[in-house]
C-alpha cells in the first residue's frame, strides 16, 4: 500500500527535511517494503534489546563541575549571535500548510 500525501507531509514536518521529488517518495516506499520483512520473524516472548551492554551498570560520575567556561569557543561556531545568545528567527510561526508551501508534494 502506498503512503498517503498527508503522511508524507506529516513526515516532512516532523523531520524538517523534504522529499524533494518523486524519487524521494519512492525511496521511502522501498524502505518500508524492505522493513516489512521483519514481520517474518517470530519474536514471541522476546524482549527488545536497547543495548548490548544491558547487563552492566551505567557509569555515574560525581556531580562535580569538571569543565566548562568555554562560551567563546562555543559561540565561535555559530553564524548568528548577539552577545552570548544564539539568535533564531521568530519561533511561533508554523510551517506553511501543504497547499501554501513550495513543495513538489502539492502536485501529488
Amino acid at each position, binding site marked *: 500500500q502506498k503512503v498517503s500525501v498527508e503522511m508524507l507531509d506529516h*513526515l516532512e514536518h516532523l523531520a524538517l527535511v523534504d522529499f524533494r521529488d518523486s524519487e524521494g517518495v519512492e525511496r*521511502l516506499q522501498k524502505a518500508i517494503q524492505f522493513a516489512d520483512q521483519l514481520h517474518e520473524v517470530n519474536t514471541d516472548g522476546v524482549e527488545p534489546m536497547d543495548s*548490548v551492554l544491558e547487563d*552492566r551498570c551505567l557509569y555515574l560520575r560525581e556531580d562535580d563541575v569538571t569543565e566548562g567556561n568555554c562560551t567563546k569557543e562555543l559561540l565561535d561556531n*555559530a553564524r548568528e549571535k548577539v552577545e552570548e545568545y544564539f539568535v*533564531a528567527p521568530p*519561533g511561533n*510561526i508554523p510551517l506553511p500548510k501543504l497547499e501554501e508551501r513550495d513543495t513538489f508534494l502539492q502536485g501529488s
Partner: protein
Amino acid sequence: AALKDRLRSQVSAALKEGRVTPTELCQRCLALIKSTKFLNAYITVAEESALKQAEESEERYKRGQPLGVLDGIPIAVKDNFNTVGIETTCASNMLKGYISPYNATVVQKLLDQGAVLLGKTNLDEFAMGSGSTDGIFGPVRNPWSYSKQYKEKCVPKSHSEDEESNWVITGGSSGGSAAAVSSFTCFAALGSDTGGSTRNPAAHCGVVGLKPTYGLISRHGLIPLVNSMDVPGILTRCVDDAALLLGSLAGHDPKDSTTIQDDFKPFELPNLTDVSKLSIGIPKEYHAPGLSSEILALWSKAADLFKNAGAKVVEVSLPHTRYSIVCYHVLCTAEVASNMARFDGLEYGHRSDMNESTESMYAATRREGFNDVVRGRILSGNYFLLKENYEKYFVKAQKVRRLIANDFMKVFRSGVDILLTPTTLTDAAPYTEFIQEDNRTRSAQDDILTQAANMAGLPAINIPTALSERGLPVGLQFIGRSFQEKQLLTVAKWFEKQVQFPMIQLEEVKRHDNGVFQHQKSASFS
C-alpha cells in the same frame, strides 16, 4: 626506515635509534600524499600542524624521552572525528568549514602519545554508505586500481579506454582511511564501524581493519550515526600494529558513558604456534547469495588451513543472519533520525539564509546541508518511529536484534572460540559499475557479512588474505567474543603469518621510498 615498514617492529625502533627522524617521516608522508592526490583519500591535510608535531617529537627523541611507541608516528583520522583546529566535515555541506573546539577522545589519546596527525580522511557523507563514493568531496579511489597487480590483469575493454575509467572503489564508509594506510601515506588510521564501515574498505584495500567490542573504545567526539552500534575502527598494515593502536585507545572514558569500566591492559600479541586447542566456527549462513566463487574457495581454503594445523573446525549456524540487514535498516534509520536532529544551523554548521521562522530556517538549512542519502534515512527513520509504527517496526527490530545477538551467544557457549567468515561478497567493483545501484541497495548488499557483529557488539577483524583473479585484495573476517580482543588478534596474527598477503606494488611509493631502508619481506621492490 621505509614508509611501508611495520610500526612497532621497525619504524619505532628506527626512530628511537635515530636512523630516521619524525620530521623526515612526516615530510615523506606529506610528499606521498601530494603525489597520490588523485586517490582523493584526504579531505584536509594538516601540513603545518603535522610538521610542528613532528618537530616537537624530534625534540623528545633527542632528549631520549619519547612519549611511547607512537611518538612521531604519522597517522590519519576519518573526517567524522572532531579535531581542534582542523576542519571536521563528515563529507557534508552541513559541516563544511566547521572547526571543532574539542578533540575526540581517541584523537586526544593519539596526540597525547606524540602521534603526528597528518589530516582527515574522506568518507561517505556522515558515514552512510559502503563505497566512500557519496561525500561532497567526491569518491575515494582504491590504491590497488593503480597497482602493478591490478593493471596486469586489466583487459582494456576498448582501444581508447585508459586507467581513468577502470579504477575501483575502496568500499566504505572509511574508504579514505583505508586508502591512506594502503598507499603508505600513514602508518595507521582511524575509521568508524557501524555496519562494517572499517572492515569493508579494509578488505577491498588489502589492509587490516579492526572493529573493537562495543564499549571498549570511547565514542566521545565521534559524530554519531547509530549510538548503540558505532565504534571507532582501527586500520593498519599488520595485526601487531592494530594491537598497538588498540592498546593506546581502549579504556573507560568518563565522557562516554557507554564505555565499560573494567580495567583495560594493553597487550603484546604472542606468536601462536599451536592452534590445536582452538575451535573455529564456520557459520553456514555466511555463504550468502552473491558470494563470489573465488571468495568461497578462499574461505574454504582458510578453514582447511586451520584444520590441517590441528584446530577444531566446525560448521555452526546463526539462523537470524539474513534478518540483520533489515533489522539494521530500521534501527539505523531510527537512530539517524534522532542524531541528525541536532543539525539545525543554530549553534554550528551550515545555516540557511532563510529567516522567516525557526522551523523554515531549520528546514531550509537541512535541505541545503544534507545529501539524498542522509535525507532519505532521516525520513525513513521518522516513519518507523511514528506512534502507529513504533511497535511494529522499531521495537520489533529491537527484538530481532536480541535474537541475532543470542545466535552468537549460543555458538560461543557451545565451545567455539572464533568465527571465520568472508568480509565482502566480491572484490572491489569498478566505480562506474558501483554507482549503477543506489546507496541503500549497495549498503544492503555489502554490509551483509559485517553487520551482524555490530548488532551483537562483538569484536571483528578483516585480514587481507589473497589477491583475486582481477589482482585485487580479498579479505577474510574473524569474529570473537565480547572483550576478547587479545584472543581474536592472536588468532588473526597467526592467520596473517600463514597467508603472507602480497605487498601492493605502486609506482608512486617506489619513487618516494627508494634506497633508504628495505625491510626483509620486500621482494616486490628488489
